[in-house]
């Protein structure tokens, strides 16, 4: 597998494709949980069990204009493990359907999941060559690596290289850019704000904001502690007295508190109390609703003479 392609094509990938592939993979993975002892037909959709990481397969479609290839959409395909090929009639039927809705889109290639391109993928790649003479292979790596900053998506092209005197088709990696339509931008923005990238416990914007403030205050606290420790050491005589540092510390201390007046105290306490009261009210509502549910359940379970509610059958 060479590292960069020389075909000179520029690739543009839409986020819809990435989200679709990831959704396909997640669906299949969650449907095969627990791993079937009796393999049922629930895993029909092109899944190959390889140590708990099923691979999914599908086609990518889009437009090629001159040297720019833009991948707009994709659909899933069935994979036949016995012949190591994708289900051809299904593909053609799907292609027809998509042609009706998107007349400009062509099949540009196929996609799969995994950590790296494999030899067996070449079979599928060659099989698709009669639809598109130079298909693309989009690979999504589903393992979550928190340290990684880039998208785990790679696009491979096939090139004919001479290796050991035998011309062979090998996969070469190509670079790509992400292109978004307005609708895609909005949805990606929406998803990005809901879930923070570090996967922490902060579930909402407010919590994220407060966590930020909390960590800032924590850092301030630890730095002041360091200063305090230093000053105590200086007082005891362990550390030689340095007047310039002392001047700096004293000027720092004089910066806070920023305002000291009675009106400020008043307003500050009032606002503090307001926030506390709102929290109290929220807790109250939460508690009351839990209590209400508990009482309802208790009444249903244990009260002998309660009305047997229950709606009659709707016909």
């Amino acid at each position, binding site marked *: 597998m060479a590292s960069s392609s020389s075909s000179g094509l520029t690739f543009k990938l839409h986020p819809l494709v990435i989200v679709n592939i990831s959704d396909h993979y997640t669906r299949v993975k969650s449907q095969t949980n627990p791993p079937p002892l009796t393999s049922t037909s629930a895993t029909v959709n092109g899944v190959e069990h390889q140590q708990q990481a099923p691979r999914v397969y599908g086609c990518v479609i889009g437009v090629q204009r001159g040297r720019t290839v833009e991948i707009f959409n994709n659909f899933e395909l069935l994979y036949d493990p016995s012949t190591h090929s994708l289900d051809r009639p299904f593909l053609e039927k799907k292609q027809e359907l998509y042609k009706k809705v998107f007349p400009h889109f062509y099949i540009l290639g196929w996609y799969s999941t995994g950590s790296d391109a494999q030899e067996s993928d070449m079979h599928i790649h060659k099989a698709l060559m009669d639809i598109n003479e130079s298909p693309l292979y989009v690979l999504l790596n589903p393992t979550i690596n928190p340290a990684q900053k880039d998208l785990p998506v790679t696009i491979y092209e096939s090139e004919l290289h001479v290796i050991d005197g035998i011309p062979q088709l090998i996969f070469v990696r190509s670079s790509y850019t992400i292109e978004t339509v307005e609708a895609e931008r909005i949805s990606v923005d929406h998803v990005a704000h809901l879930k923070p990238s570090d996967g922490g416990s902060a579930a909402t914007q407010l919590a994220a904001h407060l966590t930020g403030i909390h960590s800032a205050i924590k850092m301030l606290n630890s730095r002041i502690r360091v200063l305090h420790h230093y000053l105590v050491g200086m007082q005891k005589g362990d550390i030689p007295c340095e007047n310039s540092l002392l001047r700096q510390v004293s000027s720092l201390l004089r910066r806070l508190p920023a305002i000291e007046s009675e009106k400020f105290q008043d307003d500050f*306490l009032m606002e503090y109390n307001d926030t506390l009261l709102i929290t109290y009210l929220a807790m109250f509502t939460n508690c009351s609703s839990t209590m209400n549910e508990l009482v309802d359940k208790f009444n249903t*379970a244990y009260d002998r003479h309660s009305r047997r509610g229950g709606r009659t059958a709707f*016909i």
Partner: protein
Amino acid sequence: MNSVEGLVTQIQGLSSTASDVLSLHNVLKQADDSLHAESTRLLPFLDQLDPSKHSLGYLYFLEACTAGPVTTESASSFVLIIARFISSCAAEQIRLAPDKFISVCKRLKDQVLFLEEPLRAVAPMLAAIRKLQSSTENLTTLHPEFLLLCLLAKCYKTGLSILEEDIFEVDQPRDLYLYCYYGGMICIGKKYFRKALELLHNVVTAPMSTINAIAVEAYKKYILVSLIHHGQLSTSLPKYASTVAQRNLKSFCQPYVELANSYTNGKIADLEAYVQANMEKFGSDNNLGLVKQVVSSIYKRNIQRLTQTYLTLSLQDIANTVQLNSPKEAEMHVLQMIQDGEIYATINQKDGMVRFLEDPEQYKTCEMIERVDSSIQRLMTLSKKLTVLDELMSSDPMYLGKVGRERQRFDFDDFDSVPQRFNI
């Protein structure tokens, strides 16, 4: 005789470690009947045992000794012995035989009541509660006995200290009813009407499968305290009260409900006439004192109603509207209410005018912050407990069985038939 002595030596030998105590417990359980048979001669053996080290054995002996009828001479000596035992016994050992301990304490209560000196048993009973409780949230059978003793001995403050604790676990429902009823009475005695209302409310809304006398009496007092504290009575019980209570309690307390109706009308003459007419009924329930307090509280209620209509009012007008005899009396009432914090007003003595003010609390102070903060913390612990209870209840098979039956036959979305019951 031999068996008893043998038992004594066994107790003395086997009381050192926890495993020994367990085997001793089994021995004692088997020897229980023989002990009861010899109950009259067991007293001298008690001196050979040390209550702090041999608590379990001492407990069995003591229970057998006191099993007989109560007489004056035995009562006073037993009271001393039991009191000393309770104060010095080891809590882990007596928790192995809780019912014996409870019956010993009940005998103590009977004996002091026989001697008509309930005060002597208040402190020992409090110590007994502390030793028997597994945690401060646990309600034992001794709690209502203790409160009864406090009531009879009129030392309400000790009773109040127990009432401060929140209860989360209850051994027997009857304990809860009695505890809250006596607790309500103690609070009424100290004029803490809010807490009394809360406790009596607990009795009235506690789960019960059939109506019981404690709930009826509690409901009568509940009506009266609600009138004194709130000035009104809610006509229906909340939905978490058992249906048995919701249907039947009112019919048992008819005179009180009518008293509440005439109270809310606000006419003092009618109220007093009604009270006079039903004096014996209230008296037979020992509620006469409370009823008199209700009548005197109607003046307060009417003055409070005035604060909602007027900004300033003269004392003469107050006296007329509230049907008091003179402006002097009106002034006394208003002054008392200002001191109790029930209204906010200023009296101008020069021209006899009263100006009603708003609540001056600005919610700006640090004390207010601390109050709200501690309330939030309490609510958080309560919320956690409630979530745990909710989850327990959701997985309760009785609940799941009934909920399955009540669901619709057909699901709207896909017309699949919904299972009628869950096979668990």
